[in-house]
């Protein structure tokens, strides 16, 4: 569904944000896009949505070049930025005006989200809190039933119950012909939701794997003491011991901790990718 070939993006000649990014993302997944601050996540999302144009290479969604911003392409994507604007209208009015642009918009589905969020259609958007506005825009995006929903830091500003609601409604919206890209720093909020995981560092994709592969190839353990072993890929101090990541040589799958996984990959991407490549070659 998304095909990115040799995408390079620079704001200025001296500052390259994305460098030769290649990605092929089939539909039916909730992609988790992770990376440190300034890694280029938002820039990549904006390139996919056609809000920024590649300096080199190309980005295609459903065979449409993103930069052309054709209406048939735009009706199949919905972009929820971290910071957004909602007009001074009631929720009902907003839906009446904007839903007409999306042919598969489902008003009943949106009403269901409003009920879940305990919001009334008559409420003025400008009178809502940031978190409530975020729920509205996420609910609207889901109700468009577009093929690709792009969310930049979707759980920022949501309270604890809303985060669970968010996970629930996103999980229930995934279909074979629909994809989500969630870019976030709040990995705990979306840990149960995202698969595969894409990690971007200094403008390059350094990791792109499904959880299943991660569990097969890496082993996540908690040890009471710090271990010095060549097999240890990463270790970090936690309450009551150490969280350790090793190459999975036993074949026994352990539950991957996304935060620890991210830190492991960032600490030594070459070595981690070597493990995944070696096993791929063996297969």
């Amino acid at each position, binding site marked *: 569904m998304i095909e990115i070939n040799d995408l390079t993006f620079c704001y200025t000649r001296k500052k390259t944000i994305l460098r030769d990014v290649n990605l092929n993302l089939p539909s039916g997944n909730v992609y988790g896009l992770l990376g440190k601050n300034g890694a280029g996540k938002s820039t990549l999302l904006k390139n996919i949505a056609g*809000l920024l144009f590649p300096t080199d290479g190309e980005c295609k969604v459903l065979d449409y070049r993103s930069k052309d*911003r054709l*209406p*048939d392409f*735009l009706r199949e994507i919905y*972009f929820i930025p971290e910071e957004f604007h909602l007009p*001074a209208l009631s929720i009902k009015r907003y839906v009446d*005006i904007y839903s007409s642009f*999306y042919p598969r918009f489902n008003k009943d589905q949106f009403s269901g989200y409003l009920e879940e969020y305990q919001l009334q259609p008559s409420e003025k958007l400008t009178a809502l809190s940031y978190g409530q506005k975020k729920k509205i825009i996420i609910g609207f995006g889901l109700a468009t039933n577009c093929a690709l929903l792009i969310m930049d830091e979707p759980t920022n500003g949501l309270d604890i119950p809303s985060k669970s609601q968010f996970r629930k409604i996103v999980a229930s919206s995934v279909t074979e012909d629909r994809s989500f890209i969630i870019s976030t720093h709040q990995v705990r909020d979306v840990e149960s939701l995202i698969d595969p995981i894409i990690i971007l560092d200094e403008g390059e994709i350094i990791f792109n794997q499904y959880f299943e592969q991660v569990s097969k190839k890496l082993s996540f353990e908690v040890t009471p003491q710090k271990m010095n072993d060549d097999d240890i890929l990463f270790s970090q101090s936690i309450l009551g011991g150490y969280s350790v990541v090793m190459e999975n040589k036993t074949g026994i799958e352990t539950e991957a901790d996304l935060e620890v996984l991210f830190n492991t990959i960032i600490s030594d991407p070459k070595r981690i990718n070597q493990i995944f490549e070696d096993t791929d070659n063996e297969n």
Partner: protein
Amino acid sequence: MNHYLNITRLSNLIKREVLTNAKAMLIILGAISGVVLFIFTISALNKNTHGTHVPLFASTFMVTGLVLSSLAYRDLLNKNKSYAYLTLPVSNLERLISMLFITTLIYIITYIVYYFLLSTILNAFASYFTQQDFEAFDVADTIVWKTIKIYLVVQSVFLLGAASFKKFPLPLTLLTLFVASIIMVLIAVGIMAAFTYDMRLNDIDFNLPSYLDRRYGLDFERISKIVFWYLLAPFCWFVTYLKLKEKEV
């Protein structure tokens, strides 16, 4: 053609623009009503019962329209608003046509109706207080239609400014027009100086338009009129379209 122009999408976009900007438009009309009321009151106090409305209409119509045109793409001035505007499932041609439609046809009709009603109310009040008859606003006056014709051309420049400048489109468009005028005058003076060098040496009277007409068969006045009335607006609209096409956040 569906990729570029679809009537349903276009009408949805116009509806969106009008409904989301209705409040701002009403504020502008309210401010203009205040200006009209002020000028008309001064005029009425000076017992000017005739010839007030047409020039008042022409000036306020032009100023309001150009301000409106400058703010046509105000969603692009704000990063957060531009995300929603540029990802709205419409084509760039529809983005252009919708704003053209609003700043020309919708604006012209609305303003004429608005001014007609406002002038009727103002005349009634003025007559009540002064016991004199005030001339009604004549929509068919030639100045009214000439103003509208000029507006249709000039607004294209301000629409282009709205799509081009990332901040302060109105003052920057005015500044650009000012700088462009100076450059054009300097070029004209330069050409004139080059042509007249020999003639000035020989103390011969020189008129550039008649010289161009005599020498090259170029009717300067006619060419200027064609450029202004028929070429300037389509050129600006085309460049506005290209600006919208290449717009990034």
